[in-house]
C-alpha cells in the first residue's frame, strides 16, 4: 500500500514540468560527485589525477548518450552544461602541461601557458554552448543572454566590482589570505594572468549563468533555477578545494553564485556578472598570498 502511494507520488512528480531538469541535475551531480570523491577513499587523486580528468570523462560519458538516446533528450541541456563545466576545467588545468609536452620551451613562460589554456577553456565552453544551441529543442534551449549590455548593466558591473573589493578589504585578512601585494610578481604576471583570469571568469559565467541557469529556468521557477545553478557552482568549487583548509570556500561560492544569478536575471545580460567575476578573480590572483597548502 505504502509502495503504491510512493509510486503514485513519483508519477505525479514525473508529470511536473520541473522534474526532468531537477532529476537530471541531482542524478548527474551524484554521478560526478562519486567520480570525484570516491577515489579519495582508496587513493590520492590529488597526486594521481591533479587535472580532474576523471570528472571530465564522467561528465562526457554521461552527456554523450543524451545526444543519441531519445529518452534522454530532456536531460540534454543540463548534461551539456555540466560537461562544459567539467571538461573545460581539465582543459584549463592540464593546458600548461599539455602545451609544454607538445612545444617544449617554445610554449613560453608558465604565465603564457596559463593564458593559452584559458583561451582553450573559453573556446571549449563556446563550442559546447553552440552545440547546446544547435542540438537542444527550442523549448529547452538555454538563453545565454550574451547579446546585450546596457548602461544599467555596465553600471551594475562596475558598482558590483567595487562592492566586492570593498567587502574583501572589510573582511579580516586572515580569512581570505589577502595579507599583502607582491609588486614584483604582479608586474611579471599581470600581462598574461590578468587576461587569463578574465577569460576564466567569462567561461564560468557562460557555463553556470548562461548554459545551466538558462536551461533550468526553462522548466523551473526563476528562484529555484537560480538556487540550483548556485548549488552546482558551489559544489563545482568542491572539485578544486576538497580536503583542503579552504573547504569554507564552497558555501561562499554558493552565495556568490546566487548573487551572480540574480544579477544576470535582473539585468537580462551575462556581462555584468562577467565583469564582476573577472575583477574578483584578478583580485584573488594578485591580492591573495597563497598558504602552504594552497589557498
Amino acid at each position, binding site marked *: 500500500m505504502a509502495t503504491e502511494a510512493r509510486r503514485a507520488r513519483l508519477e505525479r512528480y*514525473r*508529470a*511536473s*514540468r520541473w*522534474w*526532468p531538469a531537477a*532529476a*537530471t541535475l541531482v*542524478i*548527474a551531480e*551524484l*554521478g*560526478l560527485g*562519486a*567520480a570525484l570523491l*570516491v*577515489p579519495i*577513499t*582508496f*587513493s*590520492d587523486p*590529488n*597526486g*594521481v589525477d591533479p587535472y580532474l580528468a*576523471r570528472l571530465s*570523462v*564522467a561528465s562526457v*560519458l*554521461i552527456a554523450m*548518450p*543524451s545526444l543519441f*538516446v*531519445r*529518452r*534522454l*533528450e*530532456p*536531460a540534454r541541456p543540463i548534461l551539456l552544461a555540466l560537461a562544459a563545466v567539467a571538461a573545460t576545467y581539465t582543459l584549463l588545468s592540464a593546458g600548461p602541461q599539455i602545451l609544454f609536452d607538445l612545444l617544449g620551451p617554445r610554449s613560453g613562460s608558465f604565465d603564457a601557458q596559463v593564458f593559452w589554456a584559458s583561451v582553450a577553456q573559453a573556446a571549449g565552453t563556446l563550442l559546447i554552448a553552440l552545440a547546446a544551441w544547435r542540438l537542444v529543442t527550442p*523549448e*529547452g534551449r538555454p538563453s545565454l543572454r550574451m547579446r546585450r549590455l546596457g548602461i544599467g548593466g555596465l553600471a551594475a558591473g562596475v558598482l558590483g566590482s567595487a562592492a566586492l573589493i570593498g567587502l574583501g*578589504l*572589510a573582511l*579580516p*585578512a*586572515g580569512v581570505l*589570505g589577502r*595579507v*599583502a*601585494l*607582491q*609588486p*614584483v*610578481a604582479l608586474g*611579471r604576471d599581470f600581462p598574461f594572468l590578468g587576461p587569463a583570469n578574465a577569460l576564466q571568469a567569462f567561461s564560468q559565467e557562460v557555463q553556470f549563468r548562461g548554459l545551466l541557469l538558462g536551461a533550468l529556468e526553462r*522548466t523551473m521557477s526563476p528562484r529555484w533555477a537560480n538556487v540550483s545553478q548556485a548549488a552546482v557552482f558551489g559544489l563545482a568549487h568542491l572539485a578544486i578545494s576538497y580536503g583542503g583548509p579552504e573547504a569554507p570556500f564552497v558555501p561562499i561560492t554558493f552565495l556568490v553564485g546566487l548573487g551572480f544569478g540574480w544579477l544576470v536575471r535582473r539585468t537580462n545580460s551575462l556581462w555584468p556578472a562577467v565583469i564582476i567575476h573577472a575583477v574578483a578573480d584578478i583580485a584573488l590572483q594578485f*591580492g591573495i*598570498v*597563497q*598558504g*602552504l597548502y594552497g589557498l
Partner: protein
Amino acid sequence: MASDRRRRTITRCAAAGVVLIVFLVGSAPARAAAAWWSPVALRGVAVARVSAIGDTITVRTGSGEMLRSTDAGRTFATAPSDAALPPSGVVTVGTQRWEIDPGGKVVHVANVTQGTSGVVDPGSPDLGPGAGLIASPAALPGVVVAVSTNGTVWRRGQDGDWKQALLLLPASLVQGVPRITAVTAFTEPLSDAIYLGTDGYAVLISTDGGDDWIRAGAGLPDSVSSLSADSARHALYAGTADGLWEHVLQSLPAPPSYQDAALVWRWLGIGAITLVASAAALLGLTRLVPRRLSG
C-alpha cells in the same frame, strides 16, 4: 525464477565490489605530514627576541628578562649578565656583509676577512633612519631582502636590481597594517628560503629571492616578534606572543608522485570508479527522466 537470478547477480556484484574496495583500500597506506611549526618552550610567555646557535638559544621576554637554554630549548634559565643578542641591521654571509647604515641605505662589504671597506650598494632604496631588518640567504648569493621603516619589503636580485617585493595590507578596516618584526635566512647554503615575521600575519616565506611569497605560519600564533635561523640545527626559531616555536627545514608540501605499478593501480581504481559512477548516473537518468517534456 527470474527473481532468484537477479538476487544471485546482485550478490555476486556486491561481493566483487567489496573485494575490489578491500584491495584498493589496502593498497593505500595512510601518511601524515610533519607539522610545519611546533612549540619548543615558554608557552604563555611573550618572546620579544630570539637568537639560536646550535644548542644555545637566547631569548628576551616581553618583560625584558634574558633567558638562555643550552639544551636546544628543553630548559631555560636566567642568562648570564654579559649575555647579548646579535645586533640588528647587519648580516654576514661567508666573506660578504650587508648592513643598513644609520641613514637607511644598504651597505655592502665585499670581503670581511680582507678588511674591505663598505660601499653603499648601487640602487639601494632609502629604508629610512633606524631601519634594522635585513637578510641574505647563502644559497642565493647577492640576494638581499631589507625592510624599510614604512613597512615596505625590498629585495635585491642577483643582478643587483632593487625592487619593492611586498606590501602588507590592512588586517581589517579597523586594525590597520601589521608591523614587520623580523626577516631572516640561513647563512649557510641550506635553503633558498627567506622568512618574514609579522605582528599579525605570522610568517611569510619566499623561495625565489623575494619575488613570490606564501603564508607559512600554519600552527603558529599570528603575532611573531622575532626570527632566528640556525644553520647548525637546520631550524628556524620564532619568538611569539605565546612562547618559542621551531620549524625544522623541510620541503614545501606538494602532492606525491607515483611510479609504475602504484600509479597504474591507482589509475585503474579511479577509472573503474569513474565508469561505474557514469553508468549508474545514466541508469538513473533513463529510469527517472520521462520520455518527453510535459506542459
